[in-house]
């Protein structure tokens, strides 16, 4: 793992940590899920082969080690996003479970009939459907902030909606479908000033840029380990302690209790109150290794690398005739490029790219309301991460041209 001292990533060195690249693929689907370096799978294997055991209820040495590593990830994550305390770091399967936890534990209790929930048309289904279900259950209403022609949220409309004193404002820091980087800090500030509780979906934020939840000022922040070099099965909900303390548990069972009696039960302290049953121990340990890996690179270098690549790709794609790019200019977007080709369906393009081992996403990107808004059933999407190199973008361009030749 390395950035070479100049604050630039040494991508060639990085790629050596990812055995999957030996297969020859050009992987351009990191916004979907990232690849994992040997350091991450190694940390998991270390657990499975040397101290595999359940945590917390430890009565022997290897369980102490497992507990230490498992809890150690919490401090690493706390430091990564600058939370005030590890009590505010809750493990979840991913962003989706983290948001569902809030929708159930905070939402069911606090959102009342007639309350307003403000979402955005850019949001991922995981940050829409839980609120739709909550709104239907509790009789709340939802309004969606629209985008302008560049795929950026209409801040004027957002401010208007805030005047109606929403109970909850939830939005993604970065759009997974268009790459739009929302002005999260300003939006949180305005929403807090309007009295709202604010959840930021950081699934496409935390993996790609430095995050400081205290500076951001949000109440909840959710993200997925599998999008940031970690294994599947482990993600994070950050919540402000005050709110978490006041919330009821979400799932219940082993390990999240203090005492269980026939007459009733008392719950464990934070953060464990929200972690019922045997957790994804190996996966949380793997996530810790992923955070270390990113820390070794430096989040600023990560962001700079993606920005450079995005500019490169944006320019290369702009040159292609019949290709429409969606979303803002490269300076205002993360490492995600969505596009369409005249006369060629995204699925057909993806299939043709697949013949060249170019892994491209085609579909609605779990953002159907956005697709409806854009008036397209689907787009093709290329997305980048720390291991992506220009050569892979070139291969994409080659596949696009091949598709145009076939469909000419």
């Amino acid at each position, binding site marked *: 793992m390395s950035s070479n001292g100049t604050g630039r990533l040494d991508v060639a060195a990085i790629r050596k940590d990812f055995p999957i690249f030996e297969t020859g693929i050009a992987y351009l689907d990191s916004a979907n899920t990232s690849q994992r370096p040997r350091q991450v799978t190694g940390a998991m294997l270390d657990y499975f082969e040397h101290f595999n055991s359940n945590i917390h209820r430890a009565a022997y040495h290897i369980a102490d080690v497992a507990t230490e590593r498992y809890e150690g990830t919490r401090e690493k994550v706390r430091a990564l996003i600058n939370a005030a305390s590890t009590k505010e770091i809750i493990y979840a399967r991913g962003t989706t479970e983290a948001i569902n936890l809030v929708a159930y534990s905070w939402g069911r209790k606090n959102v009342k009939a007639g309350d307003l929930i403000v979402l955005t048309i850019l949001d991922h289904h995981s940050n829409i459907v839980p609120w739709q279900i909550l709104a239907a259950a509790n009789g709340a209403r939802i309004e969606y902030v629209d985008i302008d022609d560049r795929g950026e949220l209409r801040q004027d409309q957002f401010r208007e909606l805030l005047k109606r004193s929403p109970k909850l404002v939830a939005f993604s820091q970065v759009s997974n479908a268009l790459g739009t980087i929302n002005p999260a800090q300003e939006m949180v500030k305005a929403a807090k000033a309007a009295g709202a509780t604010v959840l930021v979906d950081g699934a496409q934020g935390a993996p790609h840029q430095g995050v400081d939840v205290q500076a951001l000022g949000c109440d909840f922040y959710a993200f997925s380990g599998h999008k940031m070099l970690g294994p599947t099965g482990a993600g994070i909900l950050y919540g402000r302690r005050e709110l978490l303390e006041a919330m009821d548990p979400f799932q219940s069972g082993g390990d999240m209790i203090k005492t269980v009696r026939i007459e009733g039960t008392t719950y464990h302290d934070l953060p464990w109150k929200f972690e019922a049953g045997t957790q994804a121990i190996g996966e949380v340990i793997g996530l810790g290794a992923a955070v270390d890996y990113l820390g070794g690179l430096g989040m600023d270098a990560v962001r700079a690398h993606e920005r450079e690549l995005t500019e490169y790709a944006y320019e290369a794609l702009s040159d292609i005739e019949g290709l429409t790019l969606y979303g803002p200019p490269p300076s205002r977007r993360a490492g995600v490029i969505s596009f369409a080709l005249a006369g060629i369906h995204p699925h057909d393009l993806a299939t043709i790219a697949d013949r060249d081992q170019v892994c491209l996403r085609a579909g*609605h990107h779990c953002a159907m309301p956005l697709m409806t808004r854009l008036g397209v059933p*689907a787009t093709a999407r290329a997305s980048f991460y720390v291991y992506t190199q220009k050569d892979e973008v070139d291969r994409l361009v080659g596949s696009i041209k091949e598709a145009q030749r076939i469909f000419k």
Partner: protein
Amino acid sequence: MSTAADDQFYREYILDHYKNPRNYGRLDNPDITHEEDNPLCGDVVGMDFRVQEGVIEDIRFHGRGCAISQASASLLTERLKGMALDDAKKIDKHDVLGELGIQISPARIKCALLSLKVLKVGAYGLADDEDEV
């Protein structure tokens, strides 16, 4: 590593059916009309049938989507035109995939079979159950 798609994936005649779909459009007052979509990828196929004495006298399809779904629909209408409904009922997914004549990756199977689903659900009222197509 082998790739999912055969080199012949986008054969000339599939592209031809995609660009020049046969029996494309609508019928006035069809005896049967049915539309299905594949919400996960946005493909849509609909068919209108004119049936006389148990035989498909005329047929049109409409829709939008990828080359596979649209070419597959076009090919199917060619086959169905003039066919007895009873025979049409015997068409199964192997027939449809065989006619396409290319190797379809699991993720694209639904595109290829969307038109068959329209036939099954629309023309002879099978339950809309994934298992059945």
